[in-house]
């Protein structure tokens, strides 16, 4: 596997990159434990957070339940309720924080399906919440429309507008395992996961916004000799590449918005001190594991704010020495602290 950084010449993947990918990969080794919080401090500004996300994402590719299929029908029902009972009549489109409606993102009531790319689907007010039956109106663009009552299995082919499809059943367009497998040979990737989206892993980008996060990730490239991909593409964040599937949700700290209506992520990885502190304060991430990746070439104020937060957590958390001891050799320049919530 070859590596290039900001168009430098190709060379074997350096130890710091290997370490960060492995760190992300190993995080889920004990998935059912108490909540954990880690802080990685780097000697320079880098794409380290994205590499940790890549490692965690590769681990998720090996986990059978790491997909959005389970509970998708319930998610559509919740979405229908939000649309019909709140967003459809809301006069404050769309500022959930100001309205304090409890939702994080507007529901437009529109669905899409990769099977029917030209059709529009809209949640119907005939949806039966008590009976647990969602209904939608399907239009084909030629004034034909039909009221559909989908079975849960059929509903998996439909996803919320502006979000990635839950499953990709087209002949091409699934994720390619080659690069992922080459990056981490030990990983036993489950083929079905390459055709399914997942929202359990969240990348909290830079405080300056999504564009800055993308730019940093686009500077890192991997190649297995035949195919080359940037980190930006490998992460499969929705909208960062032409890949329809997405196995990493994106939280934009600048806008305070996540790119999808999703259940709580099991892990949030924050890029930078501001992003880390922002995520730490968000209600929706209070149960998620949290990994903050910061760099030390920043102002003392910013460093102290992070240090104070870590110290405050120590009231309820202990250092997770077991996890630390299990890490691969840490390259000189990276420091790590891991906290685990007490019993």
């Amino acid at each position, binding site marked *: 596997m070859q590596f290039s*950084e900001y168009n430098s010449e190709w060379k074997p993947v350096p*130890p710091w990159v290997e370490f960060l990918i492995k760190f992300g990969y190993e995080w889920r080794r004990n998935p059912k434990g108490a909540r954990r919080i880690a802080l990685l401090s780097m*000697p320079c500004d880098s*794409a380290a957070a994205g590499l940790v996300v890549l490692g965690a994402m590769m681990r998720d590719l090996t986990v059978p339940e790491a997909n959005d299929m389970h509970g998708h029908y319930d998610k559509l029902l919740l979405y229908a309720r939000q649309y019909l009972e709140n967003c459809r009549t809301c006069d404050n489109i769309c500022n959930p924080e100001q309205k304090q409606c409890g939702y994080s993102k507007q529901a437009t009531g529109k669905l899409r399906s990769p099977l029917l790319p030209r059709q529009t689907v809209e949640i119907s007010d005939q949806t039966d919440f008590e009976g647990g039956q969602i209904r939608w109106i399907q239009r084909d663009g030629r004034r034909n429309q039909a009221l559909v009552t989908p079975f849960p299995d059929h509903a998996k082919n439909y996803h919320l507008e502006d979000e990635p499809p839950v499953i990709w059943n087209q002949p091409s367009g699934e994720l390619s395992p080659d690069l992922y497998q080459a990056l981490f040979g030990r990983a036993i990737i489950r083929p079905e996961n390459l055709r399914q989206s997942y929202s359990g892993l969240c990348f909290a980008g830079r405080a300056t916004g999504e564009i800055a996060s993308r730019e940093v990730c686009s500077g890192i490239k991997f190649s297995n000799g035949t195919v080359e991909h940037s980190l930006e593409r490998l992460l499969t964040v929705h909208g960062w590449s032409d890949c329809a599937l997405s196995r990493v949700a994106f939280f934009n700290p600048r806008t305070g918005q996540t790119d999808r209506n999703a259940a709580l992520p099991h892990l949030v990885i924050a890029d930078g001190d501001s992003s880390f502190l922002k995520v730490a304060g968000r209600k929706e991430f209070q149960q998620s594991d949290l990994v903050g990746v910061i760099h030390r*070439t920043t102002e003392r104020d910013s460093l102290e704010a992070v*240090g104070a937060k870590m110290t405050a957590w120590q009231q309820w958390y202990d250092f997770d020495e077991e996890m630390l001891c299990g890490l691969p050799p840490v390259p000189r*320049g990276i420091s790590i*602290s891991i906290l685990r919530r007490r019993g």
Partner: protein
Amino acid sequence: MPATTSQIFDFLAGLPEFFTERIEIASPAFSMLRRGLRTMIVRLREEESGHEANEIAQRMRDYLSEWLTVPVTYDGHILEAVKVLGDPALVERRWGADVRMAYDLACRGAQAVQLEENPVRVELRRVIRDLRSRNRTFKIYSHHRARPYFTSLFLDPADLPLLDSDFLGSVREYREAGTFDTLVKMGPLRAWGWGSAPDAIVTAPRFQNLVQLVWSGMADDPGFGYDPVSSPVEVQEPSSNSRSVPSGVLGHCIARRPAVVRRLGNSDFDAPDAALDEDEFKLFQQGVENRPGEKRRATLAVVGPQYGILYTPNSQILSFDPMAATTDSKIQLRVLGETLVEGMFVVMPVIGDVNLGADPTNEGKLSRIWKQRLREELQINREALCRILRNKGLNLQHLPGRVENWAEPATTVIHAPQQRKHFQILIDAIAIEAHPVGGVDWWQLAWNEIRHSRGEAIQDGMHEHEIVEEQLIEFLRTMLPRINGEATGKTSFGFPLPTESGLRGNVLFFKVVSIDDGFVVPGTELKMIHELNTIEQWRI
């Protein structure tokens, strides 16, 4: 070109520890000056000494802090600065014999230092010549305002001059620097205030060795080299950076070899009086901590040769980037030192009940009157006016120069004394006969005009300011052709907001010349234009 992450890790992998050469310099003359000033400062800053004494102490502290961290030239300025208190007998009558003794000592020291070149400058010149002769790449860490003192070290045509690229002056510049051989730093390693530097110098070195020149008695900040991962740090020896990392934490494994100390100067370090050089920063810091009142950390945007604005770190500042490609990115909220950098403009809206006339780049209505009167007085008898001002209590250093500056026509701000009471004295001295308006004294109205020009309206109406900010950004984006035109070749400009903007007031633009951190400032002084000399009092 910044180094890539791989280059930095490769560099650190090949650097098991970095080496510090600490050169401690002593000079009996400078020690005398320090000792005298230290005693005066401690005594005069006591609350019961009175406001004027406190101000003098603050000014003395600023001078001494600068001389301890910057390679200043020993010329008449030092003696002039010390002698600002005037007649020693008067000093004794006002503040007692102990202050008089300290004053005499400081004056003797200030006279004595002029007999030879500042030994720090001699040593710095030697260090840099040595690095150059060995083809070692180096950077000097110094704040922007201190650079002329470094560049003046190499005025001899036989020497290569120091270039801008030889300096690092902020954490951002450090972050963007590549790797190099040697970092040269004058003064102790401190996270805040005079001579401060980024903690990354210790926790993320981009160099193989550090040459540090310090005056005797000055110690590094014990908490310097902070890494939030390994906090709280336990420092065993202030200058050696040896510390224990809590269990459950993996440290960054960057080690700093204990400093090799070389002592230079015509002082006998082992003599009994050698211990008299104390760490002034430690002493002054205790004073700051004990002083009441709410103060906040701040970063300085220098917006011209004389003026600056202080902002809290990480505050979102309305700004204009003339180089940005898109309309939206030209006018944006940015963070000073991060996304708001030199060359961009900070935007100061003066919204609300403000009336500076049709064009704020011209003088305000009232300032036109008093400035005209001041110019007349200066033409008649400059010395007499200064004497009257001093007698009335406006006892600033370089007073004649300052009065000349106040008489200058207003630009984007109205040049005037920084303090209200000084302005009152000035108006009183030039004898403007004007009746109160609506029960408010004329000088008070003129002072309000000055305050508004400095942005105090923002302070007064902070809440409203936040509400209108979004509206203002949208409006300014529609004004970009005018703003682009005004910004060309100017360092500051402003214009009144047209009625169609829905806002009443003015908007002022100031080009950021440099950025400096390490200030602790009363909350009321934030986001206002101050003279740089005034700002120095808040440096820690």
